[in-house]
C-alpha cells in the first residue's frame, strides 16, 4: 500500500483514482444510450434518435433534465437517511472498481523537472493494488445492501421498504453462491491477487494431468476452459447482485411501484442508477478477469508484446494501451450481455428467485468447489 515515495508519484496516483471514478461515472450515460437503442432494436423499435447524431445528444438532454428537476423530501421520510442513501450508492461501486487491474504497468524513466531529477516510476493501470483483491472487492460490494435498506427505510414509504427488504434479502442470499463460485478460480490459480490471476491466464491452453502435459495451441489459456460451471454460476449471481433483470425483484413495478427508489427523483435517482451500472461494470470486469484472461491478449503473452513494441521503438506506454484495449473489448462484451439479457428474459417470481438461489445455485456452486478441489488434488499427484 502507500501512495508513493515522492510528491510526483503521490499526485499521479491520486489523479488516477479521480480518473477511474470519472471513467466509471462517464460510462453510465453511454451505457444508458446503448441500453435504450439496443432495447429498441431488440423490440423492433427505433429508440431515441431525434437529438443529435444517432440520438447521442439525448444523454446531455437527460443530464440537464436530471439536474433541473425539483428537489423534494417526502413528508414521512427521515431526511438524513433519505439524502445519505444516494451518496452511499456510489461508494461501493467506485471503490471496488478501482481495484480491478485494467492493463500492464506503465514505466516512466527518470526525467528532469523543476531543476531536480525525478526517479524512475512504475504506475499501475488500476486504482490500487491490493494483495487480497477478490476478498476486498467482495467485501466492499457487499456493503451495497445498506444503500438499499437506507433508501427504503429513509423514504418512509411502504413500497420502498418492501422493495428494499426484497432487494437486500436477494443480495445476501446470492452472495453465498457468488462467493462459492469464485472459490474454484481461487484454488485453480492459488492466489487472491487479480494481477497474478491475469498473469496465470497468458499464452495457449496447457496444463499438467497425471504427469502428462496437455496443450491445445488453438485455445487461449483462459479460466473459462477450466471452470465453465463456475463462470456460469458467477455470471448468474452477478446479475442478481446488481439487481438487474431477470432478478430485479426489488423494483417489480407491477407490485412495488419502483421498489426502493420510488420516492427518489432527479439527480438522486440518477445516483442510484450510476450505482447499479457500477455493479454491472464490476461484474463485467471480474468476469473478464477470472474467466477470460483479464487484460491479456489471446494467444500472445505480455513479454511478446513488449518485445514487439520495443522492436518498433515504443516503450511500456504502447504495451499498456494495447492491453487496455484488449481488456476494454472483453469488458464491453459482458456489459452488452447484461443489457441483452435484460431485454430478453422475463422476471422471476419472488419464491422462484429464492428457490433458485438456495436450492439450485448454492448446491451447484458447492459441487463445483468440491469437484475442483478433487481434480486439482488428483492432477498434482
Amino acid at each position: 500500500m502507500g501512495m508513493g515515495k515522492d510528491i510526483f508519484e503521490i499526485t499521479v496516483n491520486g489523479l488516477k483514482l479521480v480518473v477511474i471514478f470519472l471513467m466509471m461515472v462517464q460510462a453510465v450515460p453511454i451505457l444508458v444510450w446503448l441500453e435504450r437503442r439496443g432495447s429498441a432494436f431488440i423490440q423492433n423499435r427505433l429508440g431515441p434518435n431525434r437529438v443529435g447524431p444517432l440520438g447521442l445528444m439525448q444523454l446531455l438532454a437527460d443530464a440537464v433534465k436530471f439536474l433541473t428537476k425539483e428537489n423534494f423530501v417526502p413528508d414521512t421520510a427521515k431526511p438524513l437517511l433519505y439524502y445519505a442513501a444516494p451518496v452511499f450508492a456510489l461508494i461501493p461501486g467506485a471503490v471496488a472498481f478501482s481495484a480491478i487491474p485494467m492493463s500492464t504497468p506503465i514505466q516512466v524513466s527518470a526525467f528532469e523537472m523543476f531543476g531536480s531529477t525525478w526517479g524512475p516510476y512504475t504506475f499501475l493501470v488500476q486504482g490500487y493494488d491490493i494483495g487480497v483483491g477478490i476478498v476486498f472487492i467482495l467485501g466492499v460490494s457487499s456493503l451495497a445492501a445498506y444503500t438499499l435498506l437506507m433508501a427504503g427505510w429513509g423514504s418512509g414509504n411502504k413500497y420502498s421498504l418492501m422493495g428494499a427488504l426484497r432487494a437486500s434479502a436477494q443480495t445476501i442470499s446470492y452472495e453465498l453462491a457468488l462467493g462459492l463460485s469464485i472459490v474454484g478460480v481461487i484454488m485453480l490459480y492459488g492466489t487472491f491477487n487479480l494481477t497474478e490471476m491475469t498473469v496465470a491466464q497468458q499464452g495457449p491452453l496447457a496444463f499438467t494431468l497425471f504427469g502428462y502435459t496437455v496443450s491445445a495451441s488453438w485455445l487461449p489459456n483462459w479460466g473459462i476452459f477450466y471452470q465453465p460451471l463456475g463462470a456460469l454460476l458467477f455470471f448468474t449471481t452477478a446479475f442478481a447482485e446488481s439487481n438487474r433483470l431477470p432478478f430485479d425483484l426489488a423494483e417489480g413495478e407491477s407490485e412495488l411501484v419502483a421498489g426502493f427508489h420510488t420516492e427518489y427523483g432527479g439527480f438522486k435517482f440518477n445516483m442510484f442508477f450510476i450505482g447499479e451500472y457500477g455493479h454491472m461494470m464490476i461484474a463485467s470486469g471480474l468476469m473478464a478477469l477470472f474467466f477470460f484472461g483479464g487484460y491479456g491478449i489471446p494467444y500472445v503473452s505480455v513479454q511478446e508484446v513488449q518485445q514487439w513494441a520495443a522492436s518498433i521503438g515504443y516503450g511500456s506506454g504502447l504495451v499498456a494501451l494495447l492491453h487496455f484495449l484488449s481488456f476494454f473489448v472483453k469488458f464491453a462484451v459482458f456489459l452488452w450481455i447484461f443489457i441483452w439479457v435484460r431485454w430478453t428474459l422475463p422476471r422471476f417470481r419472488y419464491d422462484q428467485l429464492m428457490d433458485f438461489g438456495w436450492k439450485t445455485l448454492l448446491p451447484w456452486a458447492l459441487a463445483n468447489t468440491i469437484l475442483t478441489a478433487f481434480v486439482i488434488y488428483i492432477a498434482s499427484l
Partner: protein
Amino acid sequence: MTADAFLFWFLAIVTLVSGLSVILMSNPIYSALCLAMTMVGISALFVTLNAYFIAGVQLIVYAGAVMVLFVMVIMLFDLKKDLQAFTRGRFTGAVKIASVGLLAGLVVGAIAMSVGLLNEKTTDNPVLVGTGMESTKALGNILFSKYILGFEALGILLLVIAVGAVALARSKGGTHEH
C-alpha cells in the same frame, strides 16, 4: 505526525464515536447503522495492522451479512423509537454505570501498566509484512494443520446453528408460504 499515526487516530475516533452511538441512539435502526460503521472502521484498523485478509473477511461477514440481517430484522419489525430505551431504576442504573466505569478504569490501567513489560517485536516476522499474500498463505497453512480440529468443530457448530435457527423461526409465518 506521520500518515500512519493520522490514520490510526482518525479511525480510532470514528470507531469510538460510532460505537458510542450504538448504545446511545434510542432508535434501533440508527444503532444498527452506527454498528455497521464501527465494523467498517474496525476493518480499516485491521488493514493498518497488515491483516488484509481478516479485514476483507470482516467486511464480508460482519458488515455485509450479520449487520444486514440485523437491519433487515429491525425494519421488518418496523420498530419505532424505543419509548424507554434504557433500563429503569435510578439505583440499579447508577450501579451499572459505576461498574462499567470501574471496569473501564481497571482495563485501561492494567493495559497501561503491563504493556511496558511486553517486549514488542514489531514485525520482524517476514510473514506479517508485505502486501498480504504471504500472510494469507501462512494463515491457510496453520488453519488447516495446527487448528484443523477447531475448524471442524466450527463446521459442526454452524450446521447445528443453521438447524436451530430454522427450527426457531419456522413456528409461524416466514417470507413466503408454500
